[in-house]
């Protein structure tokens, strides 16, 4: 079966600096040569620290950011060169839920207009018909009926995130990119929103590309996990396999940084030395080598390791 979403060798490069008078434009390789796929009804988690390019990748797959190169196929069809009306039609099938529940809702619109925005844009409903379609969506995400006529400022962060989810659901998409949907919420509210996402997936058969830096959250709902470091995927496996065994030293360090809510628990701490390097001047060879405990001079600082072709794929010369 063809995967719902398939990206092959996608790169997103941003030119930085260099006004029209200065020479020497430099390029940030936010996403570098990334391939991945998401099956129908599946959750692929994309994890990595801030600035590793995971959000940019999510947006590039939705064509909210233009990929510099590579190909994105949705339901078998190449979408990387669609534009105009065809692209807008495609947008009904893939949606996004944002990290920031404050900036993502227009303060001057009512909840009815926010949730129904997609329907209005595509000319699917208006007036009473719009109300009739928005009401069950609000109910579905657990918001009171009278939310309809109110404005976003009347709601808490968790409720706002539910509004954002309802907006994404309105067009009955098959894929939703969740860009850290819970990282701005209180821990107590995070679980509610995550459970809602899981329920929706079960009921509607949604596929999620779930972007997160919180591995606890990922463990809870991902089927497969891809670990990103500085624009590249360094490890990819089923969630089970990855949480049982990390093959890439970076994944190992990432996981050992998850706090354990038990003061007596003995923890094996694996710390990574130094700061994440600037994507403007990435290290030579394997981008992780300056911070890697297993790095071998002459190899890791010269060659770039490719992501292996295994079930539990890893991009490392000395995987565990």
């Amino acid at each position, binding site marked *: 079966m063809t995967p719902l979403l398939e990206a092959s060798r996608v790169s997103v490069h941003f030119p930085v600096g260099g006004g029209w008078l200065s020479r020497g434009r430099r390029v940030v390789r936010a996403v570098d040569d990334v391939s991945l796929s998401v099956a129908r009804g599946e959750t692929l988690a994309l994890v990595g620290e801030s600035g590793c390019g995971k959000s940019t990748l999510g947006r590039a797959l939705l064509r909210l950011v233009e990929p510099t190169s590579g190909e994105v196929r949705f339901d078998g069809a190449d979408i990387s060169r669609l534009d105009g009306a065809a692209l807008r039609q495609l947008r009904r099938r893939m949606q996004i839920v944002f990290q920031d529940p404050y900036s993502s809702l227009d*303060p001057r619109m009512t909840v009815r207009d926010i949730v129904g925005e997609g329907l209005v844009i595509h000319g699917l409903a208006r007036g009473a018909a719009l109300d009739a379609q928005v009401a069950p969506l609000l109910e579905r995400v657990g918001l009171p009926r009278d939310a309809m006529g109110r404005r976003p400022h009347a709601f808490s962060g968790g409720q706002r995130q539910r509004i954002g989810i309802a907006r994404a659901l309105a067009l009955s998409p098959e894929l939703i990119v969740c860009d850290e949907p819970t990282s701005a919420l209180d821990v107590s509210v995070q679980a509610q929103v995550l459970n809602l996402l899981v329920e929706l997936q079960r009921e509607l058969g949604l596929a999620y590309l779930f972007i997160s830096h919180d591995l606890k959250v990922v463990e809870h709902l991902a089927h497969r996990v891809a670990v990103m470091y500085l624009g590249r995927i360094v490890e990819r496996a089923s969630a089970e396999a990855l949480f049982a065994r990390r093959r890439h030293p970076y994944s190992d360090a990432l996981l050992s940084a998850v706090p354990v809510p038990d003061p007596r628990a003995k923890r094996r701490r694996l710390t990574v030395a130094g700061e994440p390097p600037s994507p403007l001047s990435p290290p030579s060879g394997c981008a992780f080598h300056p911070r890697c405990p297993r790095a071998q001079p002459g190899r890791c600082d010269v060659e770039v390791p490719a992501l292996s072709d295994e079930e539990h794929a890893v991009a490392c010369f000395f995987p565990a």
Partner: protein
Amino acid sequence: MTPRPLARALASGRGRAGLALLGAVVALALVGPWLSAYGPNHSDFAGGVDASGGPLGPSAAHLLGTDHLFRDELCRLAHGARFSLLVAVSATVVSSAIAALVGTLAGWTAGTRLGAIDHAAMRLVDVLLSFPYLLLVMAIGAALDRTGALTVLLVLGATGWLGTARIVRAKTMSLRGEGYVEAARALGGTAPYVLRAHVAPNVTGTLLALSVASVASMILAESVLSYLAVGVEPPTATLGRMLQEGQAALTVRPRLVALPGAVILASVVGFGLVGEALRDAFAAEDRRG
């Protein structure tokens, strides 16, 4: 666009004070001419001269006295206020329309493939702003030869949009980065849709506040033009010209300067206060958002 911040602004202390001042000026402009039996350009020599041989002071026939040409001061004041308000408000409508258009277009294209539009617009603004404002207005006024109300209006309108356009551009750029704009694009919204549904409503508050405040500077600019005699031609009554004409008799007839000065002051402060109240109310609305 919600009326809520508008209502809140006008109900605030500054809003009320500003509205009271503007109400007084508007009342003068509307009712003033009826309180005088004479037209604004009618010289009333029938009443004779005062003890020092000059024009008459306040009397039952001329409530605020007469000016150096024996014209009724109240009537001229009312016509001057009417003229100033009309020109200032119309010029602001013109300049705000230009500012809204240029500002959103520049803000929308800044840093994109169409960034050249933004560059062109903003360099034009830079160049125009680098001229001393009055010199620019006077140069245009002089180039257009002696002028009527319409030219004054157009000159003010064509030069008054610069600062506002910059602010609208900045606001548009910041809106472009908002999550809901990205969400609208993800839902399939076209650029015109996003501009209409999200950018315009969120820029309107800022624009309204700036526009109201800019009426104040338009009144001032119009007065300055008249005072410098590059505004509309005599004998049309304008506040600036009355100021200039009264100046010669400042020591003996201070009211001929004080009265038009007071009307200018009241309008400028009034529009300024209302503009500030609007600005604060819309800023509070943004924070609540």
